[in-house]
C-alpha cells in the first residue's frame, strides 16, 4: 500500500503541491488528472523518492520512505517502475541495449539468455522489429513501448507508474498504448500489477483506470470512480473532462 500524507513541495518559492493526500493499493488502477504544470510528474517522483517533499510523508508498505537515503531507497524502488513522458531511453544505446540494461547491470545472465529475454519483451510490447534502432530513430509510440519493455526487464514491479503515456501520440497509437497498459495490469484485483497513470488526457485515463484523482492548485479535489467523475457538478472539472462527457453519452453509463 502507498500512502501520501499531506505532501507539500515548492520549487524556489513556487508552491507546486500543497497538502496532497491519498492512499492506493498496489493493484489499483489509478489516474491522476490535472492541467499541465499542476505537479503531476512531481507526485510520481515523490512516490519513488526521487524528490523529497518539503513536508508530509510517503509510506510504502508501512515504511516511511521520506527520510531514506539513496541506497535505502533501492529496495523501495524495486516495487515500482516508471515510464517517463518521452520514454527516457538511454540515448547512447540502441533499443536492444536499453532493454537489456538492467539484466546486464544485475549480471549473471549469459548473452544468449539476454538476447532471448529482450526478444520476448520486445514481442510483448510489439516492437520486435525496432531491436537495432537508436532511440532517436523511434516514433513517440515506439519510444514508450521500448521504455515499457526496459522497465519490465528490470524486475517484477508490483506497480507501474506512467507519466503522460499517450501525450503527443496520434489517436490510434494512443489506443494501442492504452491496450498495452491494460494487458500489463490484467488479472484479478488484489493480484494484478496496478498502475498509476498521470495525464491531462481524460479519454486515455478513462480507458486504463478505475479510480480518478483530480489535482488542482496543489491539492486533490476529486477522488472517485468513473460514474462519479462523469456526474461531477464541479464546473471546473466538468470543463476539464469535457471531451470525455461528449463520448460519455454513448459509451459510458452516466447513471443519470
Amino acid at each position, binding site marked *: 500500500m502507498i500512502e501520501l500524507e499531506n505532501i507539500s513541495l515548492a520549487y524556489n518559492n513556487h508552491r507546486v503541491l500543497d497538502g496532497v493526500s491519498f492512499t492506493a493499493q498496489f493493484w489499483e488502477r489509478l489516474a491522476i488528472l490535472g492541467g499541465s504544470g499542476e505537479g503531476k510528474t512531481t507526485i510520481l*517522483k515523490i512516490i*519513488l523518492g*526521487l524528490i523529497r517533499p518539503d513536508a508530509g510523508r510517503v509510506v510504502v508498505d508501512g515504511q516511511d520512505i521520506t527520510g531514506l537515503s*539513496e*541506497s535505502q531507497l*533501492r529496495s523501495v*524502488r*524495486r516495487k*515500482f*517502475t*516508471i515510464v*517517463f*513522458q*518521452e520514454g*527516457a*531511453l*538511454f*540515448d547512447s544505446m540502441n533499443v536492444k541495449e536499453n532493454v537489456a*540494461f*538492467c539484466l546486464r*547491470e544485475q*549480471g549473471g545472465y549469459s548473452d544468449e539468455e539476454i538476447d532471448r529475454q529482450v526478444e520476448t519483451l520486445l514481442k510483448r510490447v510489439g516492437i520486435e522489429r525496432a531491436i537495432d534502432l537508436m532511440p532517436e530513430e523511434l516514433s513517440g509510440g515506439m519510444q514508450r513501448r521500448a521504455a515499457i519493455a526496459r522497465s519490465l526487464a*528490470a524486475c517484477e514491479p508490483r506497480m507501474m507508474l506512467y507519466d503522460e503515456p499517450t501525450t503527443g501520440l496520434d489517436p490510434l497509437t494512443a489506443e494501442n498504448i492504452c491496450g498495452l497498459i491494460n494487458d500489463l495490469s490484467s488479472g484479478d484485483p488484489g493480484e494484478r500489477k496496478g498502475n498509476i497513470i498521470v495525464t491531462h488526457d481524460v479519454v486515455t485515463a478513462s480507458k486504463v483506470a478505475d479510480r480518478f484523482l483530480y489535482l488542482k492548485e496543489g491539492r486533490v479535489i476529486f477522488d472517485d470512480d468513473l460514474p462519479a467523475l462523469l456526474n461531477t457538478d464541479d464546473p471546473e472539472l466538468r470543463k476539464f473532462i469535457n471531451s470525455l462527457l461528449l463520448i460519455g453519452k454513448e459509451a459510458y453509463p452516466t447513471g443519470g
Partner: protein
Amino acid sequence: MRVQKVLAELQDFYVLAVRSLVGIFRKPLYVRETVEQMDYAGAGSFVIVFLVSLFIGMALSLSISTELATMGLKMYTGKIVGIAIIREVGPVAIALSFAGRVGSGMASEIGSMVLGHQVDMLRVFGMDVVKKLVTPRVVSATLMLPLLTVIGDAAALFGGYYISVFVSHQSGSFYWSQLAAVMSFKNLFIGLAKPFLFGYLIAVISCYMGLATRGGARGLREATTAAVVLSTIMILVANFILIRLLFLVLGMDA
C-alpha cells in the same frame, strides 16, 4: 537564505568530489564506461592538445629568442622555453583546452541526461549515479590529462626547437642540451603533478554542473558555461596554490 544555498551547494560539491573517488574502490567497477571515457577524453583530445601546444611553443620561442637577441643571450632560448613550457604554460594551457573540450562535453552530456529523465531512470533502476556517471569521468580525466600534458609538452618543445633553429638560426644541439639541463626532477615533478589535480578538478566540476542542470535548453546552456568558467578559474587558482605548496615542500625560494 542565499548564503545557506551556497553553503548547501558547496557541501554537495564536496560530497561529490569525495564520493567519486570512493567509487573506485567499491564494486561494481564500471570498466567499460571508464575505458569509453578515456577514449573520449584522451584519444579524442589528442589533436587539439597537439595543435595548441605546438603553436604556443613556437610563439613562445619566437618572442623569447627575439627579446634575448637584443641582449646577446639568444642561446638561452632553450632553457627559458623549457622551464616555461614544462612548469607553467604546458600544464595550464593544456588543462584549459581540456576544460573547454572535455569539461563542456561532460556537463552537457550529463545535463541532457538529467533533463531527459535518464538520470532519474538510473536511480529508479537502483543504480548509484555517482559511481555510474561521475567516477568513470573523474578517473578518465585524472589519468588522461597528465598523459596529454606529456604529449603537449613534447609538441611545444619541438615547436620551440623549430623556431630557434630555422627562424632564429641557433644551434639545434645547443637548444636540446639547454633543455636537458632544465629537465630536473623538480621541474618535471611540478609539471606532471599539476595535470593530475587539474584533470580531477575539471571532471568533478563539470559532472557537478551537469547533475545540477535544471530548466530546459537554457538550463543546459548555463550548466555548460558554468562548467567551463568555473573549471578555468579553478585551474588558475589551483595552479598558483600548488606551486606555492610545492616550492615549500621541494625547498625552492621565490
